[in-house]
């Protein structure tokens, strides 16, 4: 008989540093969610695939706009996905999916910078809706890896000081609080001030 999910609790396992995992997700909310038109962004992100010059091996644009509160519009890569979502919690996110030959500190900073860079690229494209901009006072950081970062207080206790220390290199003030949905991956909300 195969044991049930509940019987194999994830939490008691030894947790190595949560940020040893490369599967870091960074999400910035948008200033004005009402401006997002995912259909209009297909061509913008499609050009990003065609003209990719980075190291992220971008592959395609996939729309999940039909899934309520789903992943939205995805810019899919071999190593990373970017996602633009609409609705009241409209956002731009970047999810690293494979090992990244950088230190945990560098990975986190790069993830933040690259998320912002994609948003700026979208914003600068004339086909994008006017007013497409990220908020500068808040972001979410998640780790999509329940082995290294089970969503529990212990992980938060290990991860929060790291996030504060690293993001303090970018921002004058950084306040980290637990976030995420029930059963979802480990996530923190970060309030920042330049």
């Amino acid at each position, binding site marked *: 008989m195969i044991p049930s999910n509940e019987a194999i609790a994830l939490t008691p*396992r030894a947790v190595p540093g949560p940020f040893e995992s490369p599967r870091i997700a960074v999400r910035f909310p948008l200033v004005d969610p009402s401006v997002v038109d995912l259909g209009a962004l297909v061509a913008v992100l499609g050009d990003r695939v065609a003209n*990719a010059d980075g190291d992220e*091996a971008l*592959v395609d644009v996939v729309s*999940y706009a039909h899934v309520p509160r789903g992943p939205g519009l995805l810019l899919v890569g*071999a190593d990373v996905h970017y996602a633009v979502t609409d609705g009241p919690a409209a956002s731009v996110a970047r999810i690293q999916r494979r090992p990244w030959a950088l230190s945990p500190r560098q990975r986190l900073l790069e993830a933040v910078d690259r998320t912002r860079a994609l948003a700026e690229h979208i914003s600068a494209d004339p086909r994008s809706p006017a007013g497409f901009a990220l908020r500068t006072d808040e972001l979410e950081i998640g780790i999509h890896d329940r082995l290294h970062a089970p969503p529990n207080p212990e992980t938060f206790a290990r991860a929060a000081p790291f996030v504060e220390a690293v993001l303090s290199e970018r921002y004058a003030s950084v306040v980290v609080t637990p976030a995420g*949905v029930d059963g979802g991956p480990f996530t923190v909300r970060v309030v920042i001030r330049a």
Partner: protein
Amino acid sequence: MTATWKQVLRIPHDLAEQIDQFETQIELRRREQIDEKIFAETRLRRGVYGQRYDNGLRHDGRTQRPLAYREHPTKGPNTVWDAPGMQRIKVPYGGLDGAQLERLAEVAEEYADGILHVTTRQDLQLHYVHIEDTPDIMRRLAEVGITTQEACGNVVRNVTGCHLAGVCKTESFDITPYARALSQFLLGHPDAQDFGRKFKISFSGCIDEACGVASVHDLGFIAKTREVDGRSERGFETWAGGGLGAVPHRAKLLFDFLPEAELLPMTQAVCRVFARLGEKKNRGKARLKFLVEKIGIDALRKLALEEREILPPDERWSAHLPVEGAAPPALVHIGGGAGTPWRERNVDTQRQAGLHVVTIPLPLGDLSSDQARALARIARRFARDEVRTSIEQNVVLRNVATKDLDAVESELRSAGLAAPYAGTIVDVTACPGTDTCKLGIASSRGLAGALSAHLAEHALVREEAVRDLSIKVSGCFNSCGQHHVADLGFYGVSRKKNGYTVPHFQVVVGGQWRENAGAFGLAIAAVPSKRIPEVVDRLTARYLEERGDGERFRDWVQRLGKPALRSLLADLVEVAPYEVEPALYTDWGDARLFSMKDHGVGECAGEVVSVAELGLQASEREVFEAQLELDADRYGAARDKAFRAMVTAARTLVRTEWLDVPDEPDEVVHAFRERFYDTKRCFDPFAGGKLASYLFEAHASPPSASADGARRAVQEAQLFIEAAYATYDRIEKEAS
């Protein structure tokens, strides 16, 4: 040291070992130590499938560009290692519990794109998965009782079953325990490993409804009872040789009544006949339907009965019997609930008083990880911790009490799962098409999404005669969207027009979904993709205008005939120049100028790799594992694994002529000596019987568990396997 899922999960030993073996095979292929064709079939049999653009190229509408994948070996012919692919997950008869849903949500989130995609055969699929992640996905799923084994490849695929089984008013009896038993019995069964193509099985509880679509399966079982000496006996009306694809075939009646005790052995017998006589070289003719066409259903029945007679008895044949259940209920059609639109469309009464089935329409079959977790909570609280996927790419909750319906509606609404259009024309079915499939020609998901959105707001949908029509869309002629059996079916094609390639859909009308997919539709015209919503509007409007009293859409189509229907769409077929109507030259949801350059070679059943090739490859994997043990100074383990590798290779050769060869080494060695050594068939032109004799020496007096002994064992095993390969090559040459 960082923990791994392999270390921390506790899963049954045999499952763990299979997944470890697959991980070894991945490593062997990464080192290019096994053939790409054999590796491709190996991964397909674990449900690890290729995806569009995995040849490393993508057309941007103007030119084809290389994608920036890192250099690696291939993971199959023309399939780049680094390219993300698809993981198919078997869900027999669509049954899942809350813990399984939650685990699926986790793996979708961590390794894929956060979406669980329900297929038209009740499977689930994860897209954009890396091959290195697949062993951990399999381990995490195995922990909750889910397998990906044989989800793809030339094997028995997911055994599907009516999603209303056990609660339906029209069923003869609940097919669930039978579907479960057959699914488990055939998983990895030696008699179901040597097919030229895939083999699909379905169960239906009754003849009238569509839920099992038995007539379009290799084997379709329809529950049936008969009276014998005043006693009710259970069995199955058994249909064989059905299938969709480019040329659809309706199954033929194999047995009018197959007693329940014969379900497993007779299926095994049919598998043996198919493995023996089915086409192996020409994939296009290798499904059971072609064998039935060639020899006739009567000959298949005769051969299956003969094979059944000589099958060695197996205690698993009847382990699931007797199945207790309620007496066959009266045949009464399910009726919708009254009240809110959600209750009216999505809730049906069960045969059990006071309980209900709630259908949750999933747009394009997609469920997000958050939604899957919400569904798990709802199922635990209100539906006895069970959901079922349906072949219409939806999910159903069963056994929901009347008093809980309001709460269920509210919770589903919170999760974005309460769209009130279950089973209506808005609830469009579609295969993945060009979104992810290498064979896709046109965007089936794009069209399905557009049609769904268009129809949801359309006045025509308020007419009951239109509201209940079915729409199914396939990205190509292979028919994964099951377009042949829809009222309105579409499949992707392309046409050269005005110097451009233009995405089109072939319009197929008048198929029958009910009565287990009772009839196929008529192809009437290929129309540019962007005009398909207009096609639907015209056909449905005309049907409403002209239909006779109670005339069904299918009957109207047949009455009107192909020429009249075609003329109705004549102006839509014309393609204006690009400069006049550029939208026609792009596909739904894709800004690129349409092109066929991304169209690739399918993997839907892999290349035909014989069971012998797979067996010899397994022996190579085992000797590789022996080498790893040797490198780690575990000499006893190295010696034992080397011997096991030789036994696997020997058994593989023996099995080419003796299907039921046992697993025990003593018997394998004996049979090998008799059939391949004494006959000199495994002799090397130069070394004679020396290489073959290594097996006998290792069997009679194993080398010591020292470094030297283990090294010798591994080296001799490698040479023995080479000799086995050479022998197999000779057998193949003789056969051809």
